[in-house]
Structures are given as C-alpha cells and as structure tokens.
C-alpha cells in the first residue's frame, strides 16, 4: 500500500483546505505538512520499490486499479512531492487561499496518479483530471492581463488531444482483446500482444501527438508561452516541473513499449521534431527580453533533448531521459520560483530593467547561481549527468543528431549566463519594491534542491542504477521490433556504431 501513500496524502492535502475556510495561514501550513509527508512517503517508496498494487474494479470492462512504483515512476513521484512542497512554501498570500492551495495539491495528486497507473483507463482518468487544476490555476489565479485567454488556450490544447487519446486507448484495447481473450486496459497484458503494423502506426500517432502537447514539443507548444507567462511563477513552476513530465513519462511508459514497431518507424521523423524543439527553444531563450520566458523556452529546448533521448530508442538514452526528467524538474522548479521572487520584488521581469541583485541579496543570488549552473549543465552538478548520458545515447543511435543537439549546450551556457548576469550582476541596480529575503521556510526548502543538484551530479548512479532495469526492458522491446521489421528508413544511418 506504500505505493498509494503519496497519492492519498496529496489528495487529502487537496481536500483539507476546503474545511479551513479563509484561514490563510492554517491552509498554507496544512498544505506544507501534507506535501512534506507525501515527500517522505515518496522517498521511502524509492527505498522499497519496485512495488505493485492491483485492485479489481470493473473486471468486465477490463478495469482495475493497477499502480506500479518502479525505476521509471519513483523519482517522478518524489519530484512531484518535492516540487509541491517548494511551490507551497514559495506561495504568498492570495485571494481565495483555500482554492489555490487545494488546486496545487490536486494537480500534484493527479500527476502522481498518472505516474503510478499501469491501467490505461485509470491513467486516462488522472490525465483528464489534471486539466482542471491546470485550467483554474492559470485562469482564476492568473497574474497577467490575459490569464483567462491563456487558461482557455491551455484547456483546448488539453481537451482536444485528450479526445484523441481516448480514441487511441480504446482502439488499442479493442484491437488487443482477441489476443488477450477479453477486454483489458492493463499495461502488462497489452505489452504481450503484438499488433499489426498498420494499427500500431495510427494509434502511435495519436498517442505521440497527445503526449507531446503536454511536454510541450514544437510545434505543439503554442499554449506554453501564454500559460507560463500569464500564470503566477509558482504555477509556472508546477507546469514546467511536474506537468511536462507526465507527457514524457507517458511516451516512455505507454507509447514506445506498446507500439514498438511504429515507434521505430516514426523515430527519425520524431527526432527531427525534437531537434527543432531543441534549437528553436534555445534560440528564442537566447534573446528573449522577458526573464521568465527565457526559462520557459529553455524548458522547450531541454525537454526536447530528453525527447530526443527517448527517440534514440536505446537503454542509454532512456536511462538518461529519466535522469534528466528528474534533473530538469529540480532545476526548473527552483528557477521559476527564484526568478519569481525577483519578479515580485522588482515588479518586473524584463531583463533590461533588472540587475545588481547579487549586491542586495548575496544568499539569494547564491541559490540562483547554483541553480543556473545546474541548468546549464556544469559538470559536477545534476544537469550535466543527465545531459551526458542522454547525448551519449543519442550519439549511439545517430551521430548527426548528437552533433546538432549538442549545439544546445553552447546556447544553454549563453542564455543562462545572460539570465543570471542581467538579473544579479551588472551596473544597473534594480529598484526593489520589497526586500529579496529568503524566509526560514523557503531557505529550508531550497536546501534539498541544492543538495540534490550536487548529490546527483556526483553520484548519478544512485538514480540510473534504479532506472536501468526499466530502460533496458523497454530498449529490448524496441530492439526486438527492429528485428521483426527491417525498416528501410534506418539505412541512411549506416554510420552508427
């Protein structure tokens, strides 16, 4: 039952504020406690994994509450709890606090649900539920003048693919039913079925498109600038740190293993899209005047690299992808939250108007600095460990992809250094509306982030050794697909080793 604990705790935490009325402090405290407890449960879960829970629900429909905690999901569950804790700690007074904190924890709970479910319908339910807090947090608790429009855009970009996704899931289960003997949505059973290539192809397309929107991957990212820009920094942290991972996770967990031949068929095309994401995001991040948008587009670029690692279809790439999902979650959440503090203190997020923060708040600047270094992939910190493994996996599949993708590393250095310098250094000193002081709670919450950046940087094996079994089993599926289907379009890659 340990598997369920983070999910239960976050759900309880989402419900609790509703009983506390307008007592803002109490609500925040309760949310903090529940997300901290969920984090503890998730960390214990890492020690106890792998675990599985199977509760029959509606057997006739092939429905069962199947939850699984393994190398793929355990770090993402822990990341979600950690991100939630930080987001709560970094949230200030707000109107209608009960709703705000409740929605944050609900978003976390539904995300954890998607990470744990191994029944496709249950997964789908969590996936759909996740849209509600997202929509409301962007819209009603938004910050920008256009937040309602942004929320609507998010809603549409979520609901339309969901419809596709449902069609794809049902088609998959129906197509697999004869082989299984009954209708089943269980991943384990579905994995054993080999579907004909034509069926695989279009189910894969629907899967991939729906999941890629959530990451997002170019050109399905049009909702992202609005959603990240119009919402509060705390919500942007949640969207980028946690929600984006659900899309990548679903690709790794469902789309690629269930439809390996289709994955192989589309891999080169998906790689092109991933490469465009990587460069496109990096290029925009390089010149954007808005600091938060620099972080947003850096996510487009970095998650594009993770996607490319998945598309590389080998164990190294997958291993690196999971590691980097965790890493990105850590540094992106910290970046959005820290920069959010600057935004709130300075009343602007235009980089040209910021500067000189380091002189005012050395400790704060120190945290921002180490986070930026982790994000730009400095060896010794976590971002590098993931990037190295990812690029190595990509390199193994295609040197051309790796050569292009690695350009993003140079861009990354340039735009993150620019972000830091324009915020913290330089001759201009920004007028601060309020002091940039880290409260004890915020300080305490930031410490584990920094510890993780350093620890994973030095001992990534702690993560990768747990991911490897899953990565290898998925890679084996893909490799088997390569044998059953000698795909012509891989021949252009004769150079790969």
């Amino acid at each position, binding site marked *: 039952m340990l598997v369920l604990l983070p999910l239960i705790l976050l759900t309880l935490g989402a419900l609790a504020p509703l009983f506390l009325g307008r007592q803002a402090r109490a609500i925040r405290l309760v949310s903090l406690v529940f997300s901290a407890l969920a984090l503890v449960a998730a960390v214990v879960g890492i020690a106890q994994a792998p675990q599985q829970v199977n509760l029959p629900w509606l057997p006739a429909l092939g429905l069962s509450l199947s939850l699984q905690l393994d190398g793929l999901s355990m770090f993402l569950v822990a990341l979600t709890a950690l991100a939630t804790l930080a987001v709560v700690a970094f949230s200030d007074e707000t109107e209608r606090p009960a709703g705000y904190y409740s929605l944050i924890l609900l978003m976390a709970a539904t995300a954890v649900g998607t990470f744990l479910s191994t029944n496709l319908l249950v997964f789908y339910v969590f996936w759909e539920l996740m849209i509600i807090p997202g929509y409301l947090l962007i819209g009603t608790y938004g910050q920008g003048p256009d937040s309602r429009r942004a929320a609507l*855009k998010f809603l549409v970009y979520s609901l339309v693919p969901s419809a596709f996704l449902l069609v794809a899931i049902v088609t998959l289960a129906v197509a697999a039913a004869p082989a299984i003997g009954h209708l089943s949505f269980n991943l384990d059973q579905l994995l054993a079925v080999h579907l004909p290539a034509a069926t695989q192809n279009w189910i894969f397309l629907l899967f991939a498109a729906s999941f890629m929107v959530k990451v997002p991957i170019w050109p399905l990212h049009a909702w992202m600038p609005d959603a990240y820009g119009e919402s509060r920094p705390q919500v942007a942290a949640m969207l980028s740190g946690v929600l984006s991972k659900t899309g990548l996770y679903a690709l790794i967990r469902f789309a690629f293993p269930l439809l390996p031949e289709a994955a192989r068929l589309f891999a080169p095309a998906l790689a092109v899209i991933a490469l465009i994401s990587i460069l496109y995001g990096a290029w925009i991040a390089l*010149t954007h005047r808005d600091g938060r948008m620099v972080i947003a587009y850096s996510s487009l670029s970095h998650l594009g690299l993770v996607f490319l690692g998945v598309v590389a279809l080998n164990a190294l790439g997958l291993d690196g992808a999971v590691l980097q999902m965790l890493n990105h979650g850590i540094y992106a959440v910290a970046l959005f939250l820290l920069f959010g503090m600057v935004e709130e203190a300075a009343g602007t997020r235009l980089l040209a108007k910021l500067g000189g923060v380091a*002189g005012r708040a050395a400790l704060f600047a120190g945290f921002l600095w180490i986070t930026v270094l982790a994000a730009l992939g400095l060896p010794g910190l976590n971002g590098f460990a993931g990037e190295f493994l990812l690029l190595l996996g990509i390199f193994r599949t295609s040197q051309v992809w790796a050569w292009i993708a690695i350009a993003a590393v*140079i861009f990354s250095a340039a735009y993150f250094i620019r972000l830091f310098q324009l915020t913290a250094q*330089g001759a201009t000193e920004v007028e601060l509306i309020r002091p940039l002081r880290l409260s004890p709670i915020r300080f305490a919450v930031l410490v584990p982030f920094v510890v993780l950046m350093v620890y994973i940087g030095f001992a990534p094996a702690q993560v990768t050794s747990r991911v490897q079994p899953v990565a290898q089993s998925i890679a084996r599926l893909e490799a088997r697909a390569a044998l059953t289907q000698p795909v012509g379009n891989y021949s252009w890659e004769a150079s790969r080793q």
Partner: protein
Amino acid sequence: MHSVIVLALVFPALGALVAAWLGPRLSHRQITWIGVGAVALSFLVAVAAFVRLASLPPAHRLIQDTLFIWNRAGATPIHFSLLVDPISILFMLVITGVGALIHLYSAGYMDDDEGFGRFFWQMNLFIVAMLLLVMAGNFFFLLVGWAGVGLASYFLIGFWYTRPTAVAAAKKAFVVNVVGDVALTLAIFLLFVNLGHVSYQTVFRQFAILPIATRDLVAALLFVAAAAKSAQFPLHIWLPDAMEGPTPVSALIHAATMVTAGVYLVARAFPIFGLAPGVATTIAWIGGFTALFAATIAIAQDDIKRVLAYSTVSQLGYMFMAVGTAAYAAGVFHFLTHAFFKALLFLAAGSVIHALSGEQDMWKMGGLRRAIPLTAATFLVGTLAISGIPPFAGFFSKDEILGGLLSGGQVGLWAIGTVAAGLTAFYMFRLYFVVFGGSARTKSHAHESPAVMTVPLVVLAVLSTVGGFLVLPGGYNLIESWLLPALSRFGPIPPLPPPTNWGAMAVALVVALAGVGSAWALYGRKAPAVEPLHGPVYRFLKGKWYIDELGDWLIVRPVLWLGSVLERFDRKALDSGFNQIGHLVAGWGESLRPTQSGYVRRYALSFAVGVMLVVAFLSLRP
C-alpha cells in the same frame, strides 16, 4: 601513497568551502592563512608524490587511485580515478607551487577589496578544478576539470561584477570555453562508442584499431577543445578580454596554468595525435600562426596587461608548435619556464598597477624604475626571459622548440617562430622602456608594494633565471629523461629530440637582440611621450586584426538576429497563423454556433491544424 594524492584536491577544496562559508566572519589575515595554506599543503602533497615517483624505476612511475564509480553508462562503469605520472606531476607542481606564490601575492594585492573572501574561495576552487584536470585518470574527469576551470575562470574574470566590461568579458570567456567543452565531449563520445571505454590506458592502447577517419576526428575535436582553452586562433578572442579580472587571476589562470591545459591535453593524449599526423601538423601550423599573429598585435597595444595577454597567446602558440611536431618534452619545458616568467611579468605588472592605484595605460606611466626599483628589476628579469636572452629561462626553452623545428625539417615553422621571437623581444622591451624608462608622464605617487607581494616576485624572478638550466645545450636534458618513460608507456615512442642546433640558437639570439635594439631605438633612447608608430598597418594591429569585429558580424549578430526573428515568429506567426487557418476552416461553422465564444473554436481548430501538420509530417517521414 594511494590514498594520499587525493589530498592534493582535498586541501584546496576544504579551503574553498571554509572561505566561502565563513568568509564574511573571518578577518583578511585568517582568510589568507586558509587560502594560501590550502594551496601550500597541496603543493607539499605534490612534492611528496614527485619524490615518490622519482624513487620508482622509470618504467613504473605511475600512481593510480580509483575512488568510486560515478555512473554506469550501460554496462561500462565510469570511475572517478586519479592518475599521477611524470607528465601530470610537472603540471601539479606548477599549479600548486606557482599557485601558492600567487595566492600569497594576492593577500597584499586584494587587501583593499571588499570581496577578499570571495576572491580566495574562488581561487582555491580554481586550484581544485585545475588539479582535477591534470590528475584525472580518464577522459571523463578530464572533462569535469576542464569545465570546472572554465567556471572558476568565469567567476574570477567577472570578479568585479558591477563593471559591465568585466561581466561581458566573463560571459565571452565562458561561452568560448563551452565550445571547447562541447568538442571534448564529442571526442569522448566517439571514444566511448567505438572503444567502450574512456580511461586513458584503455583508449591509448586500443586507439590504433580505429579507422583513420575516426582517429582524425577524435584528434581534431581534442584540438578544438585545446585551442579554446589555450586561446589558439581563432578561439583566442576571449583571453585578452579576460584581463578584466584582478591581476593575480591573470597571472595564475590566464598565463601560468589554465591556458596551458590545451598543451597538457595534447601532451597527455599524444598517442592519439601520434596516430593522426595530419591533425598534428595542423596543430603545429595553427600554433605557429597564432605565435606570430598575437605577437604582431602585442606590438600595438597600450594596456600593460593586454600586451602581456597577447604575449601569452603568442607563447602558447610556441608550445603548440612543439607538441604538434611531437616535441612533447620541448613543449612541456616551455610551459614550465613560461609559467615562471609569465606569472612573474603579470605579478610585476600588478605591482605597477597597484603602485599607480589602478592605472593600466603604459603611456601614463614612465620612469618607474626609480620609484619601484624591486618591481622594475623583477619585471626586467621576466622581460629578458621571455625575450630569449641567455642565461634566462626562456632562452633555453624557446631554443629547444626552434632548434627542434629546424632540425626536424620544419623550416617554415622555424622561420615563423624566429620572426615571432624577434617581435616578442621588441614588444616586451617596448613595454619595459615605456613603463620603467624615461621619466614620469603623469604625476603619481608610486610606492613599492608590501613584502607579501614582492617576495613572490623575487622567488619567481629566481625561477625565471635558473629554470632554464633543466635543459642545457649539448645534450643535458632533465625534462626529456623525466618524461620519456611516461611517454613511451603507451604505444609509439615519440622521436628523440635532435641534438642542439647551434645555428638556430645563434639566429634566434641575433633576432632577439635585434628586437631589443629596435625597441631601444624607438622607445628607450628618447623616451617618447606618445606612441611614435602610426599608419594603416599600425591601426590594423592596434585593432587586433579586427577579429572581434569579424566574429561579431559573422556569428554573434546573425545568431541574435535569428533569435529575435524566431521570437517574433513564435509570438505572432505560429500562434496566430494557426489561428488564421483555424478561422478559414471555421468559417462554415459561424452560422451554426453564433453564440459560442470564438476563442475555444479558434484554439481547437488551430490545435487541430497543428496536429494535422505533425501527422502529415510524420507520414511523409524521411
């Protein structure tokens, strides 16, 4: 012994941590003890390792220590392992020895700075990263150190972070260095994917089995990395700007140690370059071109530190000429003497700047040999050494390179190197005469620096004087006999250096004296008040061949321009473009649902169009 060498890293790491954590609460004196002490202890470890190595039979001079598994890439573990052999120990001794002297000097130089604690922890951090770079037992941790020194260098160039020029220079240095990091990463990938390993020993043993194209590619990538770190043309652009950092930083990082990392890499990975002769030749020629090119620029610079910066670029070019022609011992020898005399020159220049309260324009100086005689004397020693005047250190090491080139049949490279040597003598004595000769050009109250600064100057002056005696003309070559067993451990033994080429030595000496003579004629005898040179060539050299402008126009501006274009595209075209298509498609629905909000429909349709485009693209897969 096995566990001891890691202490060389531990001491400065602790120093950095303590100074960073407690810095604000410690006095300058305490920070000095911690900062200098950490590096001095590290130096003692290096000395102990050196003694240990020397006591071993030549073929077994190797200390290896594997500490833990960093990560597994598939089945292959990547170890955190250290390797100390005759090559790395020389670098370690210089890094910690010269490093300790420069730390000591900094205690005086930075005493007035409110960032004193920050300065010391960042300097200690640099020592850690630099030691890791030379002590790493595999390419992976070489990369970690490689990027680490880039970071420390970034920190220290931008030390005065409220100065826009310093911030810009730091960013430029970092980005150019990352280009090198990326090249090194790609080289490691190639080695890993082809050989399944990244440890030096395995890679060097198996490198010969790779196809020629792969070998050349690996070697070329390693060289790009080396060129970025060691400021070889055209990746030299960051180094002159790096002079924005405090002068001790320029001495330690941008003269004595970090910028020689590229030389270390080529010497370390010599079995790779030995099997990629085409790349090696290219290295030598780029080194030769850089040596000459940077020397011509140094002639026309007015900032005392910029002259020294270009002279560093030029001297690094000499080292690459040597290692590119497989004269590894000569290259390492020149690294050693250069570390002494260039650190000396920078620290003496720092003493001048300190004495004049921050003035760096040499045309506002003059007559300083009377005001600060000790600084002047030590600067003169450094100038004599770099100009190749016997018996100072630079004479021997430069001759070792030039003589080797001529004897090896590289007449073109030899000629370039010799001309550059003449230019070196010219611009260095120009600098000396303008700064220390004649009389003061502006009023100043120059005062000699405190002992904490002058003692390191004197020690380095002594080393710059006697350092060359490790190799004497006529076959006495301590460096060679020290390095050869280490070099011959893997694969082919590099060719023995040819016997002393007395002809090359005589020519070099005459050319150097000619350089000194012309500097005397132009700047020494009459002590002009302003630069007597002018004309288009002079302006071209003063403009640094306009390489910065060229890079700005060819790379920086187009990249930034495309960035802003994409940003506009993303904001307008992609978004509203999809919406527009949605509108067209939605036209028919207008009459059916007149009351519905337009947004939902538009987004839905724009999204659908997006998905359709993706699906269409995927269906037209390559």
